[in-house]
């Protein structure tokens, strides 16, 4: 589904991803772990098409298409979803209006019929229950005045409604209490199927107890330096990231 080959990318001329290669197949859940500043968010944002994050070489193929050639909205319509590390507040843009517009843009692109207000509300209500978001949130402005946890749940709610083929979660677990963590994991688990792939970016192993990955990768200094099964996450939890860096240094 997603094929990242030798990807280099940076922000403001500063190189951050330095030859990253990763293969994600349909139906798989991959966890990407790594120390702060290793480039996890950069990877997520390059995949989502955030303008500041500029790929300089390498390729990303998504379902056979050159993903990097598409503007952000086209990627979303093709089924790529990024749950952001820091969801932005957008005063004056109504949550439900925004999400309906987004869903219908996606559906239209995929040749599906657009949902009318009633159909959309029904779907939204169902997904709200899943992430235990109060309906009152829907009539507020996007993320405005939401607590940190509410913002993260709103990301998962949007994901549930948009039903992306490739979901990328950028530290959605950070700052969440255990209940919220469980809700987020349930939201993602509900999406799991042979057709969906998930890239879970996390700093801690906590979330992976509820959301068991098929593969775990360690990102350090802009590259995947180690890959393994779910045991790798536990090892990282116990030993921290230093040993990987030491291993890297030793290998040079």
């Amino acid at each position, binding site marked *: 589904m997603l094929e990242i080959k030798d990807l280099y990318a940076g922000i403001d001329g500063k190189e951050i991803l330095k030859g990253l290669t990763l293969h994600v197949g349909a139906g798989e859940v991959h966890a990407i772990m790594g120390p702060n500043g290793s480039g996890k968010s950069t990877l997520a944002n390059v995949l*989502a*098409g*955030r*303008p*500041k994050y*500029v*790929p300089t070489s390498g390729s990303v193929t998504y379902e056979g298409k050159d993903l*990097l*050639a*598409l*503007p*952000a*909205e086209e*990627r*979303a*319509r093709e089924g790529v*979803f*990024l749950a*952001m590390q820091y*969801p*932005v507040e*957008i*005063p*004056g*843009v109504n949550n439900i209006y*925004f*999400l309906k*517009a*987004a*869903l219908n*843009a*996606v559906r239209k*692109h995929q040749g599906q019929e657009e949902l009318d207000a009633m159909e959309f509300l029904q779907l939204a209500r169902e997904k709200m229950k899943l992430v235990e978001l109060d309906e009152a949130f829907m009539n507020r*402005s*996007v993320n405005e005045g939401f607590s940190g946890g509410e913002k993260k749940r709103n990301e998962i709610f*949007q994901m549930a409604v*948009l039903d992306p083929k490739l979901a990328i979660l950028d530290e959605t677990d950070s700052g969440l209490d255990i209940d919220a963590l469980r809700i987020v994991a349930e939201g993602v688990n509900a999406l799991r199927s042979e057709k969906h792939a998930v890239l879970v970016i996390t700093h801690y192993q906590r979330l992976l107890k509820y959301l068991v990955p098929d593969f775990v990768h360690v990102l350090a200094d802009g590259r995947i330096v180690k890959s393994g099964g779910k045991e790798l996450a536990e090892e990282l939890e116990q030993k921290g990231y230093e040993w990987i860096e030491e291993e890297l240094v030793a290998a040079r």
Partner: protein
Amino acid sequence: MSTVLDDRFTLAPVHIDGEPERVRRIREQAAERFNVLGWPTTRSEDWKYTSLASLTSIDWKIDQRQPEGNDPASPFGDQPVAELMFVNGTLHANRSALANEHPGIRVMPIGEAMETESFTQHFSRYADYEKHAMTALNTAMWQDGAYIEIAPGTVVEGFIHLLYVGGGNAEHPIASHHRNLIVAGRGSQITVVESFFGKGTYFTNTVTEIVAGDGAVVDHYKFENESLDAFHIGTVQIHQERASNVTSRTIATGGGLVRNEINAALTGEGASLSMEGLFVLSGKQHVDNHTVIDHVAPHCDSVELFKGILDENARGIFDGRIIVEPDAVKTNSRQTNKNLLLSETAVIDSKPSLEIHNDDVKCNHGSTIGQLDEEALFYLRARGIGAEEARNLLVYAFASEIVERMKVDAVRENAGRALFSRMPKRLPERRSESR
């Protein structure tokens, strides 16, 4: 047709049939003042951002024909309680509906109200032609306008609509001077909507005096949606008595050269005022918002919020002054101007100011100028919303703070539609795109 100004730059006042002696005198004094003051120039502090050179170089005519036909249509259909339509400064009787069947409401052409007690008491008492040349011009030259009087204790559900249609061209540049008086009696409640639009080159010079009696609740809306070749100079002069509550909203989307003066005097204890404005400009539009809020009496509140959205080569001005007089203790006042610049060539001048003459007040003011939030833009796009739609959503969101507060459904919906249709269509210059 008659010329506004003759060659010697002296103004001869207009007179209308049945004009009482007092009105004649006021007109003559106003004309004299205009001849002394002359057209405003950028040398005066109050006009430093706006040159009227392009206006004063045109030989404006007054159109005294009676409008006929059925065009144009009101945007509100039959929703207003009463509606007066003026075409090039003259009442279009066929297209106007008075509110005769409503007890306590008098809506009529101002020429027919000149003998009433209330007219005699209030007319030209608040809009100051001694100091303000354009008010002097209006006071000398008005031919028509609306008179609205709400009896004490009368609560008007719905709204009264005053609609002004202008039209002209280079050969027949027409000037219209409208003059309105709105008197809301003690404890009454009323919403008045004024809308301006038209085609081609013309000049609207309008003055509306509003008197809010003790405890009266008055909502006033001004939709300035003139043609892009039109000149519009308007003054809304608000006089507030004890415990009155006035909301003034000025929505400017049209006009080539526009000056919106909104002035309020809070003269009775406990009066409160909310003064809001929104200007959405593109092309070469020039819109100068000039406001004065004068706190005369103690314990009054005022909240002022003006928001500007400027694209292309538009120029917007917010020049707002709040005066707190020596006796106006316990004044609460807040003044805010926020602007969104959508192009690198749009210009905004923001000049909020406070002039406080006693210590016992709570006042603050501030202004901001910003661009569209790139983070928000990306967030919307990352969910599948196209770049242009995302941009429009954010621009609209900026405006919605003002629109959403409009209490009358029909007015709010109309404002929303008008804004959406005026939304700048161009994408930002610095559009950053993924490769």
